[in-house]
């Protein structure tokens, strides 16, 4: 057993750390939030140049042969900087599903340009009724000649406004909430019949509601097997969850560091408030929570490639439970220890708190994953 990073991984960590530190100062980030896209093409080009867009993909897929640990390393630093570039929807989700289920032609047409920084993706799965159930999908794809016609609604689709292609989870057979009968389609973001309502999210990312009105796609738009997308999606989401957990550990480190600094310098009653035992103990609990979050994220990153889907799912859900719990504790504690300052827009802690809160709500909150983990563990 060895839980230390290799030299290459340390270098990756340093370069990601430097990127977040230099490009995502508080003021810089505020400027990026205010741009039309909500992220910077020059940063994306830098990701391509540094090899981050291809690091987790195999060499035969045009990547650099890394894996979940590399993703974890970069996502953690993204969390520290509250980085806004759409790495998660494009690389982790989009790229991940194409690598897992795509044909050689799709990999050439989609994955290769993505790794070069020339294509971005969005993943449209959620519908109004879905909540956290990945199989509760009713957007319909019906056969139309040799191709398909898609009609229905998708919600909270991250990066839809910037994506070149939207990867859509549609029902091609089966009844409501049946895992069988789901199919993934790669749809041109500018396709006729596809309309968008764009908005920012609480944590300053960009998402959209998508309406599909008889959107026609060819047979080659199908990603993977018809009616059999569920295992692909479940795995991709588990991988995204683990990546998000890494991001959350970065957020927690940053918010804890900011709080520690604050309680060392903020004076009341003639002393730094960090001299009060009640705050010392709370700060220790924040530190412990971040440690546990890091541990569970590392464990999940090491298990996510397991051949057994149950091992993988339990690891992802287990980490998500921990991240939900720790993120909430660190976020709420940071605000409390900062006092009123902690909920002003001008302090970084409020922004980390918002991101940590949204991470809990994405792809299933703490309660949801506790139930999922429990069901999997009881079935064993």
């Amino acid at each position: 057993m060895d839980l230390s990073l290799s030299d290459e991984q340390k270098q990756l960590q340093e370069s990601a750390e430097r990127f977040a530190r230099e490009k995502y100062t508080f003021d810089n980030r505020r400027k990026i939030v205010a741009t039309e896209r909500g992220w910077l093409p020059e940063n994306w080009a830098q990701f391509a140049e540094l090899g981050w867009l291809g690091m987790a993909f195999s060499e035969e897929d045009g990547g650099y042969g890394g894996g979940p640990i590399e993703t974890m390393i970069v996502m953690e630093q993204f969390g520290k900087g509250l980085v806004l570039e759409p790495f998660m929807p494009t690389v982790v989700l989009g790229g991940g599903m194409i690598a897992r289920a795509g044909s050689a032609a799709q990999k050439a047409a989609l994955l290769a340009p993505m790794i070069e920084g020339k294509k971005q993706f969005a993943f449209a799965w959620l519908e109004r009724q879905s909540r956290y159930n990945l199989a509760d999908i009713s957007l319909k794809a019906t056969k139309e000649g040799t191709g398909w016609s898609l009609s229905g609604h998708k919600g909270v689709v991250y990066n839809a406004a910037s994506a070149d292609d939207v990867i859509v989870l549609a029902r091609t057979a089966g009844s409501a909430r049946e895992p069988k009968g789901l199919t993934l389609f790669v749809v041109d973001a500018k396709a006729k019949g596809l309309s968008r309502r764009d908005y920012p999210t609480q944590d300053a990312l960009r998402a959209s509601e998508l309406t599909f009105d008889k959107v026609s796609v060819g047979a080659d738009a199908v990603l993977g097997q018809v009616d059999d997308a569920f295992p692909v999606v479940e795995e991709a989401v588990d991988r995204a969850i683990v990546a998000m957990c890494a991001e959350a550990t970065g957020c927690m480190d940053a918010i804890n560091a900011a709080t520690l600094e604050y309680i060392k310098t903020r004076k009341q009653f003639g002393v730094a408030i960090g001299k009060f035992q009640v705050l010392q103990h709370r700060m220790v609990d924040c530190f412990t929570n971040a440690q546990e979050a890091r541990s569970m994220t590392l464990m999940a990153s090491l298990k996510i490639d397991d051949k057994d889907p149950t091992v993988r799912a339990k690891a992802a859900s287990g980490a998500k439970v921990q991240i939900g719990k720790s993120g909430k504790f660190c976020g709420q504690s940071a605000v409390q220890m900062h006092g009123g300052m902690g909920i002003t827009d001008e302090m970084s802690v409020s922004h980390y708190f918002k991101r940590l809160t949204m991470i809990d709500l994405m792809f299933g909150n703490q309660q949801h994953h506790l139930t999922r983990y429990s069901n999997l563990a009881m079935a064993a």
Partner: protein
Amino acid sequence: MDLSLKPEHKAFTDEVRAFAHENLSPATREKTFSGKHYDRDDHIVWQKALGKKGWLAYTWPKKYGGPGWDVTQRFLFENVLAEEGAPRILPFGPKMVGPVIYTFGTEAQKERFLPGIRSSEVSWCQGYSEPGAGSDLANLRTRAVREGDHYIVNGQKTWTSFAHWGDWIFCLVRTNTEVKAQEGISFLLIDMKTPGVTVRPIIMTDGAHHVNDVFLDNVKVPVENLIGKENEGWTCAKFLLANERLGIADVPSSKRGVSMLRQIARAEPLDGGTLADDRAFTAQIADIDLQVQALEMSELRVLSAMAQGGAPGAEVSTLKVRGSEIQQRIAELAMEAVGEYAQPYQPGMLFHDTNETPVGPDHAPPAAPRYFNMRKTSIYGGSTEIQKNIVSKMVLGL
């Protein structure tokens, strides 16, 4: 001992309800139930209606123009108004400075200031916290120097809720720097229109503007605006804080929050049914429901003791601690009930009258912003840490 209501209380409840139906604008009411922010008129038009009826200063004794209600009537009044979706009465005039003025003020001050508070013609805000004086309030630095018939005031107040709507601000100022911190403080009323008073908005994480910095730069305040004796303002300050802590738990709005949680659970889809089928979630609502009941009963016990002639004691701090935790938990559950659709940020749905349709369900737009915003409840009015210090010292003798 009796929990049941007498017939005259039933009639009283009906009267309050009828009044709310007649006087609360449907638009304001709608904002309450959809979680939108109120604008100034939502508060002031409603408060003026209450004032006209003689109900705005409902905790005041008859002698000062209050209705002279007993504890039960006050309790019913607050609950019915919360159920009807009325905005909370802004406490700064009727709950904070009003009682200070009729307890510590001169006859002339009572005549001058109380009518405007009772009618809501004059809006007040609170000048307590400063950048260096938060939990350590007595550390305040805003200086008032006597020059003839005036004080010249210099300093900065912060976290001043609704200073941008305020006509007057009541301030704690330092009038003596030579003595122990608490002994050199005075309670001063300042007209916000006086030259040298500047208000700067503080934007909170949900995008809302409720609080402000207030800068006082050579502000000339007539000596007759001093309440109580010079350097004895700390007594007024503590009296006011004890009153503030009593109402701040806002049990009626938490009760409304619990019933709104159940409505949201019944409306949120889950696996072909609704979130109301999820026992793990509904148990969490039940848990907070019971916490609200424990808090309400604890508050009633305090009020009942006060009705027998007691003053609110330090145990009121426990109500404030629990009340804020409960408000935060309700907001947290409401956000968790919405799930993924709590992510879109829709300021238009929070702050403006708009015909826009929300992204997701109607109850989604305020869910996350409210959760973020409610973190303030364990900070303002004396943080949880300070309240616990008070209880451990004053009640437990530690």
